[in-house]
């Protein structure tokens, strides 16, 4: 570590991690000829704040270089995904990734925080690798298998209920995408979290307003999100999802007896303004020509 990183403030560190997430995601998009880039750009600050400041987690328990895919879950096979987020202990927080399509952003966050070797990203979306494009619980940073949307919040409820019965002090954090608010199960889950007063659950939602077919407002409107979550019994905080300090402050909101929902309004081209031109079709970014690749390569060099 350089002397400058030793003296940097937590905000500077989070900002640096966020920038690193964006840079690595763009690099992978170029190298692998396609990636969930816009999701990494919109969520980089949220994940950076989670991994550097909000999450109370211990050091990674998994190898820096992830082993290849070891098989689907079965008795006797321990999956390493969650181990990248530290040991499981009563006092530690848990991070449950609901939007598995954000895997690349999580991998990059793990690299930027020293939990994963940079070389691991070379295996991204490679056959036989556990660093999969969408990922499951064998993939670094993933405790759950969540590519089918809307299920993690309910599973978080089960985990939180179990942790309450065991009188564990650690919190259950969920990272979700806004598109998941179109799924009925999301609202079943909020209803149940509120009913059972599970205030050991906190949810960061990346409200980037974008889904596969285009803008969420045109595909299936989900607003007013704050009113909806409030009506279902959650404590809601709305923040600029690129404001590092606001993202951190939101986690300290008092929410006794209710789950906490942090709506993070974000931009899918944040940090790579070149991408603005491709809006709103940014669900999966693949550059179309050598000329386009070169423009982004130039951009990456300056990042």
């Amino acid at each position, binding site marked *: 570590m350089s002397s400058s990183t030793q003296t940097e403030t937590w905000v500077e560190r989070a900002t640096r991690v966020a920038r690193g997430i964006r840079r690595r995601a763009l690099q992978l998009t170029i190298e692998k000829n396609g990636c969930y880039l816009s999701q990494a750009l919109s969520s980089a600050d949220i994940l950076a704040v989670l991994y550097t400041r909000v999450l109370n987690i211990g050091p990674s328990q998994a190898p820096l270089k992830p082993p290849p895919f070891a098989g689907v879950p*079965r008795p006797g096979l321990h999956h390493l995904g969650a181990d990248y987020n530290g040991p499981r202990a009563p006092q530690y927080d848990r991070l449950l990734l609901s939007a598995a399509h954000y895997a690349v952003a999580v991998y990059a966050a793990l690299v930027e925080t020293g939990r994963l070797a940079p070389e691991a990203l070379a295996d991204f979306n490679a056959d036989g690798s556990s660093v999969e494009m969408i990922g499951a619980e064998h993939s670094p940073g993933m405790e759950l298998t969540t590519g089918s949307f809307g299920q993690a919040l*309910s599973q978080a409820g*089960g985990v939180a*209920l179990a942790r309450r019965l065991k009188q564990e002090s650690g919190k259950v954090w969920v990272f979700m995408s806004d598109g998941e608010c179109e799924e009925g*199960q999301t609202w079943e889950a909020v*209803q149940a979290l509120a009913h059972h007063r599970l205030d050991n659950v906190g949810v960061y939602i990346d409200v980037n307003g974008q889904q596969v077919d285009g803008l969420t407002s045109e595909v299936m409107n989900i607003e007013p999100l704050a009113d909806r979550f409030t009506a279902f019994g959650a404590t809601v905080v709305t923040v600029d999802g690129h404001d590092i300090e606001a993202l951190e402050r939101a986690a300290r909101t008092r929410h006794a007896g209710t789950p906490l929902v942090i709506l993070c309004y974000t931009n899918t081209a944040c940090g790579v303004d070149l991408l603005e031109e491709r809006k709103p079709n940014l669900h999966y970014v693949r550059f179309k020509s050598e000329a386009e690749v070169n423009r982004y390569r130039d951009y990456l060099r300056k990042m």
Partner: protein
Amino acid sequence: MEILTQVHEKNLVAWAKDRPEVVVFSGDLTGSTEIGLFKQHYPDRFFSLGMAEQNMMSFAGGMARDGFTPFVHTFAVFMYRRALDQIEMSIAYPNLRVRMFGFLPGILTPGGVSHQAINDVGVLRTLPNMTILETGDATDVESVLDVAQAVDGPVYVRMLRKDIPRLFPAAERMQLGRSRILSRGTDIALVTAGICTEEALRATTLLAAKGVSISHIHVTTHKPFDDPALAQQLASVKRGVITMENHTTVGGLGTEVAEMMTEHGIGIPLTRLGLRDTYAHGASREYLMKEYGLDAISLVRATERVLDQRFNINEEDLAGVRLSQFSGEMQLEAL
């Protein structure tokens, strides 16, 4: 024959007493799935999840990840139909210890098509990691909890409620992957599960009196379906195999037996009694069993077709049959 009531309701309370890891989930059907007494005895281990089955199944998966064993109770249709993806992704893929108690299997309810789980075994049998059990009498209902709890993975149970006959001695408990052989014979192998076993016993008593030699096997494990004793019975009869299930003939017991016969190279005709690729409707159990050919007289007619013989048995004869307890061991001695 002894008829018991609220078997699961009472048994679950006694069974769960020293098992603090067992929690019960209710989908707004507490009385209907016999968990009211559990709620009364262990209010701290009872959780109301309301009419939101997708959330309930994923919630159960989450809780199982943290060391508890959720016993999810609702009508079968609301689990495997309404929340199939949740069962697959939140429970089956991660191979979690969740026990799903599906009530009202098949045509056991006048509630009609929305409440009748006619293809649950067929659907859930295609899920990797899933163990599937079915109860057919009070002894099965009492012992299925031990069988389920010993499985290191998810278990789905076709459960019976209210008035249930005791066909098998209480001490002869259900075992995973082991069928109950009720009689051994050489003409026909009759494979039944759930409520069809009791119904079949009305016919087999009379058929045996007419000289038909029947191997009657009661199946309680639909998956894994690899009981060597069952395969041996199927291979040891000469004329044919008949299956009888409270389910469609696609994907359930009939299909399981067909697969087993094929894998063992057993080349005799198979007759599958069950709902013939159709939904049902709301009516009494007796009415529906007759309408869809799941009653004793249908079994007699199927046996006549297989053997190409007529036995002069009518419905009045069948109605007069009084069942007693069937012990596999006792039957063996009788042979």
